[in-house]
């Protein structure tokens, strides 16, 4: 199967909206977003980072905490938040705040899963407190996205061959 397209849009000046189709039923996509042993396998930064803490208390008012660590120098990066809505297997809304405030304030993330013919369309929207925060979040991708993507793509192609 060809890699599905990830669409990124800015529906308003405080939001980022991503849409992507996964070739799996939404119950699996939901689990992969909410079960720690699955989350830590894919929600990673650039190569060399691993997820050392992935705590998830999946209920309204429950919190989650993610910490990543770079093996090379021990640098750690953490973030977490509180679940506002949990509707398996279709919707999760949670706050997001990073330990190092690389964007001001917190964001509200909404993940919506729609299943059709065994495939799942994921729509992930991040609502920031200000346009400045949203732009800072967008900018973060540019700094490291280019360097790591080709390496990783090559590796995945090899393992899937």
């Amino acid at each position: 199967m060809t890699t599905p397209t990830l669409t990124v849009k800015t529906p308003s000046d405080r939001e980022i909206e991503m849409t992507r189709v996964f070739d799996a039923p939404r119950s699996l996509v939901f689990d992969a977003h909410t079960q720690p042993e699955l989350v830590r396998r894919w929600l990673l930064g650039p190569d060399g980072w691993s997820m050392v803490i992935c705590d998830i208390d999946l209920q309204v008012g429950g919190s989650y905490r993610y910490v990543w660590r770079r093996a090379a120098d021990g640098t750690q990066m953490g973030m977490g938040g509180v679940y506002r809505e949990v509707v398996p297997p279709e919707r999760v809304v949670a706050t997001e705040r990073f330990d190092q405030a690389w964007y001001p304030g917190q964001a509200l993330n909404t993940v919506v899963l729609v299943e059709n013919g065994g495939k799942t369309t994921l729509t992930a929207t991040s609502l920031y407190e200000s346009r400045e925060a949203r732009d800072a979040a967008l900018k973060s991708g540019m700094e490291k996205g280019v360097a790591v993507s080709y390496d990783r793509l090559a590796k995945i192609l090899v393992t899937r061959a």
Partner: protein
Amino acid sequence: MQPRSYERARPARLDATFAALADPTRRAILARLASGDASVTELAEPFAMSQPAISKHLKVLERAGLISRGREAQRRPRRLEAGPLAEATEWLAGYRRNWENSYRRLDAVLDELKASRPQDPRKSKRGPTARRRR
């Protein structure tokens, strides 16, 4: 998943670009200009809007550097300026690449789950063929 530190100074023009692009009318104006220069009157035509309202949108686009004004005295045709738009697009592209990396890994995790778990109790009752991977 984000860089440990980022440059706090943000390019003001990029902010202006994103603000300008946030409005559907302004995006439609840019789309129209992509097919050629147009006067304010021409730009106002497809919209149920007064010329002053359109002019206001044009001012925002102009401040963001997304359009410029032609010299022609009567029409003052507006022209699309590609630079800032490309810069904003590159930002989105970087963010997209970043998440695409993670989502490619998620694809692999999901493939594995599909192979190892019955997806649906109804299907699993029908026997192993119902949940066999293609």
